[in-house]
């Protein structure tokens, strides 16, 4: 029983992180109908931004409240800027081209980032894994019998839920959010109504990238080891979560991510950790077999 509870808690903790990354996928898909393959790698870059900031702060100040806030802010701002640049120079010129072109570009960017960061040239970090500084010193928050809830799990959950609430407010309560939803609905009509489509898409990209950076830091705190290929897998799993929830559907992405986190944790917990990477894709194929539009997505007839 205590095993079961522990897996449940770990699964939910992993799921909230996937959820933050999945939200970026689903938002970008919403406005651009593009699967941003490079999203996970933007997250990875964000983690390295955070790493560099924490290193600059030094061992003592990085663990203070302001230190943590600073690390998160620096990483999220850096990623937002990078998201902007990627959208501006790689995706925008291809917006009216066939979708395959943009997909190949996204795969290219993903590769350039994840393998580029493995080089040891100049400021690039190189392939060997590094220990992420303990910006939240781990301690047991609650111990019930054999079940342990760590403080970073609680803080992660807090940050993740906080970011989701902010996102919900942005999308449903602000002018920008309304413009975003309009672009997602029909970007040509939105342009005719005077909505600056380019700016809205750029804004969505920046928002998604910032969320990814936040998620990446939480992941780094959980996993403690960071390396340039981490984005590839976390990104793919988050994408799977977004598809399971129904891509383009915001609450669906969160639920899909929680579900994926739990399934992964339980399968790994009761078999062997070497199966971890196969779980997400197996789950994806099963979901696509029976509900190709995702658990919460709507079936859309293809228009000619």
């Amino acid at each position, binding site marked *: 029983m205590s095993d079961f509870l522990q897996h449940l808690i770990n699964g939910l903790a992993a799921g909230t992180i996937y959820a933050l990354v999945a939200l970026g996928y689903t938002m970008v898909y919403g406005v651009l109908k593009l699967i941003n393959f490079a999203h996970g790698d933007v997250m990875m870059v964000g983690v390295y931004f955070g790493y560099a900031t924490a290193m600059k702060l030094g061992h003592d100040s990085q663990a203070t409240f302001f230190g943590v806030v600073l690390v998160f802010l620096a990483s999220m701002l850096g990623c937002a800027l990078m998201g902007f640049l990627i959208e501006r120079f790689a995706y925008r010129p291809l917006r009216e081209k066939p979708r*395959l072109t943009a997909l190949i570009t996204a795969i290219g960017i993903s590769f350039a980032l994840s393998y580029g960061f493995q080089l040891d040239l100049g400021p690039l970090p190189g392939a060997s894994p590094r220990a992420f500084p303990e910006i939240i010193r781990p301690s047991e928050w609650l111990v019930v019998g054999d079940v342990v809830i760590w403080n970073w799990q609680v803080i992660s959950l807090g940050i993740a839920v906080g970011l989701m609430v902010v996102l919900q407010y942005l999308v449903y309560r602000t002018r920008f959010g309304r413009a975003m939803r309009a672009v997602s609905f029909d970007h040509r009509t939105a342009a005719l109504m005077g909505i600056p489509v380019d700016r809205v898409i750029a804004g969505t990209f920046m928002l998604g990238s910032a969320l990814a950076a936040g998620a990446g830091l939480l992941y780094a705190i959980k996993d403690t080891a960071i390396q340039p290929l981490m984005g590839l897998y976390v990104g793919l799993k988050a994408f799977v979560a977004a598809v399971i929830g129904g891509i383009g559907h915001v609450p669906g992405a969160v639920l899909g991510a929680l579900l994926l986190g739990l399934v992964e944790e339980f399968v790994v917990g009761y078999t062997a950790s070497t199966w971890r990477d196969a779980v997400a894709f197996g789950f994806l194929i099963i979901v696509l077999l029976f509900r190709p539009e995702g658990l919460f997505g709507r079936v859309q007839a293809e228009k000619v």
Partner: protein
Amino acid sequence: MESAAIPGPRGLPYGVRGIFPLVVAVPVLAALEAVLGHWPFFVYISSLVGVSIIMAVSLNIVNGMTGQFSIGHAGFMAVGAYASGKFSLETKELAISGLSVGMSDQLLLVVSLLLGGALAALFGFLVGLPSLRLRGDYLAIVTLGFGEIIRVVVQNTEALGRALGLSGIPQTSSFFMIWFWVFLTVLVARRIAGSSHGRSLWAIREDEVAAEAMGVNTTGYKVRAFVISSFFAGVAGGLFAHFVPIINPGSFTFVRSMEVVVMVVLGGLGSTTGAIVAAIFLTLLPEALRTTFTAVGGGDASLAQKVDQIRMPVYGVLLVILMLARPQGLFGTKEIWDVLPRWLPRKRKGMQ
């Protein structure tokens, strides 16, 4: 779109036309084997190139001709490599009576290759049937996921050597065998492109909804394209397993899939000869750079290692630049004889 040239040389009777490429290719390959087959470096490099060509040309059937986007081709290669490698390991002591040792080995190799190809085709069918009902980007992710699942399954299977892989597979891949399969793959790809089957694939590529409205069974054609493509990827894997000393899950990662994708995109989605040219170029380039740097560095291997490291980011940047500057790749949907300069003999276009 380019009108299809009639395959085979003109003016030959239909019966001869069908076997004509075979009549030319087999003696040529046998002669090359006799002349160059004893030069290990050449055999090794040409084997690498041959496997790359089979991979690129077979992926082009799905990604180029049908307009789907599979990025898990290495998964099928892995299935073929492990299936045929395991078969050869089990039948290592076996010799077919009445044949010389060499002939018996080659016959067993062919059986193992067909086995690997068939198993890969079966997997292609299993993966293709559900996922080809989905739109392009979903297919991309499912094929990627499939490749990863294969890798994880192999890593957890004792009989397949887990992470260590299989070693001691008889090294029976010969120059002739590899290039004969290259020839078969290219022949099949070209014949498909020129057939009514290929026309249907092109129709799906150009507009799936319109193709369906014209009575093309889109799912059926896509699945068939997928099965043919994975068969040849499996054969390529089998050939690969029989000339490298060891196969392990690390040989068939996402990176390998991406290499093939880059080849197909660089050559031009839909161009068989483009895929061939790109496969030759992208296989020889790193080898050439490595050899050059090792020579320049005076045996210092660090420069040569840099080449290996820098290959992947360069592929990524290459894809982005290609898409921005020349999204149709080198040849687009044309073949090499359509883009040769005017003063070279060209294949005449159109029906006669």
